[in-house]
């Protein structure tokens, strides 16, 4: 659905942001993009809905070139973005109005808008806050509200740009739960983060550094690379544990990471292998 060919981008002051990126994203894929601050992750995803235009190369969304101004509206309906700081994105005086803002701009019939807003608020668990002002929501709730706004647009692809870095661990857990629900709905998800534990269950992970894609593959293969440290990343301790158990001859199924209970069960049953 998304195709990036030889994309390079220079910032207005001339510094290089991206260098020769080639990447295809499949419909329904959950793609994780990781890298340290300044590695180019956000710059890359800002190309996915035409917020930034390539200095060289080409980005196309369902065949539409992001450099073509006549396609921009349709591209933005196809790819929604949720940013790190949702406070700056609110426009409505109540949460409900805010979530309805996008669908209203699509000139949909009122019943359809109502339905979409209800559904979106339900998915993120904010149905009881529909009449609250977005300003009174906590950090975690604001982030969920921003996700609801993206959902109400029913875009094919949602890009999450470092949404968890300001959240506490409970809200992070909640956002993860929402992502799990979205995956079941065949949406394409692009998830940018510097916390590797958040992309353990992605279909594919890209590691970026200095404006380039330096590693690419399944989470399992990428997270084995000993050089992740050089890219300013840190393996989640639990993954590091699995890696060292495997190095000692006790290989555990990566899928067990989805449930600590199951992982404990497996370790307990085979504890003679440790």
């Amino acid at each position, binding site marked *: 659905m998304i195709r990036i060919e030889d994309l390079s981008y220079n910032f207005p002051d001339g510094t290089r942001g991206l260098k020769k990126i080639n990447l295809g994203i499949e419909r329904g894929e959950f793609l994780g993009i990781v890298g340290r601050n300044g590695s180019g992750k956000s710059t890359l995803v800002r190309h996915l809905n035409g917020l930034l235009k390539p200095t060289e190369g080409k980005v196309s969304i369902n065949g539409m070139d992001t450099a073509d101004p006549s396609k921009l509206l349709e591209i933005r309906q196809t790819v929604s973005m949720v940013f790190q700081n949702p406070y700056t994105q609110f426009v409505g005086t109540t949460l409900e109005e805010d979530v309805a803002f996008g669908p209203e701009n699509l000139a949909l019939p009122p019943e359809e808008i109502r339905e979409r807003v209800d559904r979106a608020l339900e998915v993120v668990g904010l149905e009881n806050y529909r009449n609250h002002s977005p300003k009174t929501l906590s950090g975690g709730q604001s982030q969920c509200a921003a996700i609801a706004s993206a959902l109400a647009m029913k875009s094919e692809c949602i890009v999450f740009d470092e949404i968890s870095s300001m959240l*506490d661990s409970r809200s992070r857990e909640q956002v993860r739960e929402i992502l799990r629900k979205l995956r079941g709905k065949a949406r394409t998800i692009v998830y940018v983060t510097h916390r590797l534990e958040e992309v353990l269950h992605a279909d594919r992970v890209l590691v970026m550094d200095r404006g380039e894609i330096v590693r690419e593959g399944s989470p399992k293969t990428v997270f084995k690379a000993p050089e992740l440290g050089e890219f300013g990343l840190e393996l989640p*301790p639990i993954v590091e544990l699995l890696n060292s158990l495997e190095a000692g001859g006790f290989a555990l199924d990566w899928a067990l990471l989805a449930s600590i209970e199951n992982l404990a*069960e497996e*370790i*307990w049953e085979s504890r003679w292998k440790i």
Partner: protein
Amino acid sequence: MGIKVENLSYSYSGNRKGKPALENVSLEIAKGEFVVISGAAGAGKSTLIKHFNGILHPENGRVTVDGLETRTREVRRKVGMLFQHSQNQLFEETVYRELAFGPSNFGIRGEELDKRVHEALSLVHLDAGILDRSPFSLSGGEKRRVALAGILALRPTYLVLDEPTAGLDPESRAKLLGRLQNIHQKRVGIVVVSHNLEEVLPFAQKVISMDEGRIVFTGSPDEYLRAGYSPVPPLARLMKELNKKGADLREDIFTAEEALKELQKLRQEKPERDREKSEKGAAETEAQDNA
């Protein structure tokens, strides 16, 4: 001695009718202790720490630092405070003046002042080359370090930090936590407000947990994890699950290395039935190979 809070209550004046931000809070932080204050957004953590150096004064109750009332000037020196967006705390024309600002307000001049500036700079691992630069020309990470150095130049007895790792990537976070550890080793008491507990718990001696303006828990990191006040980090949860099955492992585990060491306690002989099975399997393979 230490920071002592007795029956402290506080409500923001615009909110008189609403719930108080702090309700009857009592706690003690000993000299040189490393304390983590946790709690959800809006629990009262930031309101509480602002009482430690007299930014806020108690409505009811009492706060003292090493026996001094927080209205005394000396308390401002003793308790250094780094806010969440500390990069916005800078205002001087050069980094040197930024670092000299605090100590010179306390009458420190000349050679001693110069010494303080360099000492603080080295605690945050910046080099002297930066001293002539404008703080505004620095990167976000450097600004945060300069802000921290500015506080350290006062040689505080206690360093209070509000969400110091928010928004940092893993590399910068690890470096900052390493620096805090060094500062702690110099017997500076450290109080960290954080909701990323897995990062700071390994260093903590005491955890104070708040909810709706009250303290709901005080104890060691291990006790904290067992009490279940916050989502437990995956490794600690793994240990807990194994303990449910009959293991006897520590639950305050944060690194893979520690976890592996604990897990090795579980290692045991291969059970009889499995051994038979695999021997049988081996024999069959052998038979096939021969065939």
